[in-house]
């Protein structure tokens, strides 16, 4: 029984210990990450903010097995992944992790529904099951009427919603999103924001690297990074709206 097929509920979905990443050699050596300790529990939504070059995208790449750390450990659902073979890493990415990128990365020659079902087909699902799942996801992201459109016929916001549906295709343990609204205008950002908030409410484990404060504000927990390390962490508690009174000019 492998851990990614049967995650223990008590295990964090993501865990790092002493995670470090260096680029370059000698005097030009840059510490992109420096001793990062992270636990993301099942069903949690985490937002990571910080200035460009703070290491937040590097963190996402290491968590998703897209790069290997210089030092430290990466665990996904109780399984250490930083020393896995390339083949095992590729399998982990296909089955356990959904990626969403700033530039969408859709296959331009495939329609929306074909893009969404592709990961399921690659993971060995039957064409019928893959198409059914893709159709459900299209409905979830509000694009049923765009199923047969090529990405070039979709707006930026629609493309990103297709990319999010594709990330969910294999019911991943965790979705890793890198600047999901970085290329979108404010209207399309709101559509993605509603979608991400819906995923959070549905209990999808989600890690979002973002510059957008509204996207970050959908998370359960917020971390700010500077110079490769965590410097500030806040639980964005789901309290009452009572404290909003202060913000609209009501006085105690």
């Amino acid at each position, binding site marked *: 029984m492998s851990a990614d097929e049967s995650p223990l509920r008590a295990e964090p979905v993501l865990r790092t210990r002493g995670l470090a990443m260096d680029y370059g050699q000698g005097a030009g050596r840059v510490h992109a990450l420096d001793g990062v300790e992270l636990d993301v529990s099942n069903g949690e939504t985490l937002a990571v903010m910080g*200035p460009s070059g703070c290491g937040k995208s590097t963190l996402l790449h290491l968590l998703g097995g897209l790069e290997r750390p210089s030092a430290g450990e990466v665990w996904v659902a109780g399984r250490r992944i930083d020393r896995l073979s390339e083949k095992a890493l590729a399998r982990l990415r296909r089955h356990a992790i959904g990626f969403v990128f700033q530039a969408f990365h859709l296959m331009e020659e495939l329609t929306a529904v074909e893009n969404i079902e592709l990961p399921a087909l690659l993971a060995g699902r039957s064409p019928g099951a893959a198409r059914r799942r893709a159709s459900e996801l299209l409905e979830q992201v509000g694009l049923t009427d765009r199923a047969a459109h090529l990405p070039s016929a979709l707006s930026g916001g629609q493309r990103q919603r297709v990319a999010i549906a594709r990330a969910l295709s294999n019911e991943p343990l965790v979705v890793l999103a890198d600047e999901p609204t970085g290329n979108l205008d404010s209207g399309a950002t709101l559509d993605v924001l509603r979608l991400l908030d819906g995923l959070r409410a549905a209990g999808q484990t989600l890690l979002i690297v973002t510059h957008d404060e*509204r996207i970050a504000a959908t998370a359960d927990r917020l971390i700010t990074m*500077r110079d490769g390390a965590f410097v500030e*962490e*806040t639980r964005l508690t789901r309290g009452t709206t009572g404290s*909003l009174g202060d913000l609209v000019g009501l006085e*105690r």
Partner: protein
Amino acid sequence: MPDAVGVSMKEPSRGYQLRVVQEVLLALLATEASHGYQLRARLELALGPLADALNEGQVYVTLSRLEKAGLVTSERVGQTDRPNRKVYELTAAGRARVVEWLADTSWPKPAPAEFHLKLVAAAAAGLGDPVRLVDMQRHALLAELAAAQRAVLAEPDGSVPGLLLEGVVLRLQADLRWLEACARYWNTTKGRR
């Protein structure tokens, strides 16, 4: 007993107060005479989830104060199945006050000078890292943004309280953008020291 008078004159102390509640109630009475319960209901429609935080008694306390000031008059109206209730109507003086209020362009000011000086002082005295202070402040505002945004997402499209909450969100975004600029400045200044 002076003490008892003092107590009875006091504002109900629980919940939020609307600072301009006098003017708002007068304006709501400009179209038609209403009783306190109706006025409260109309405030709730405009404020949505924020009305939950409003002090229950403020509307009634304010109405009797407006009556003493001659801005409204009241009349008791009998009801068959319930106790009589007071219906309030705007006086000419009350109407003049509403017109004045609508034309008033004063605007609540944000106060960035205080935080700005906090950063300058912290850096000058070596009391703390300004960038760290900015990060703490950013997280505090982001927690408020999260609360406002959850309230926005819970509102149906095009709701009146949704418009108010959008104002809260945009204002917090503007403050957060300024804090980004503060972080950039103090981050580079720190490096030069």
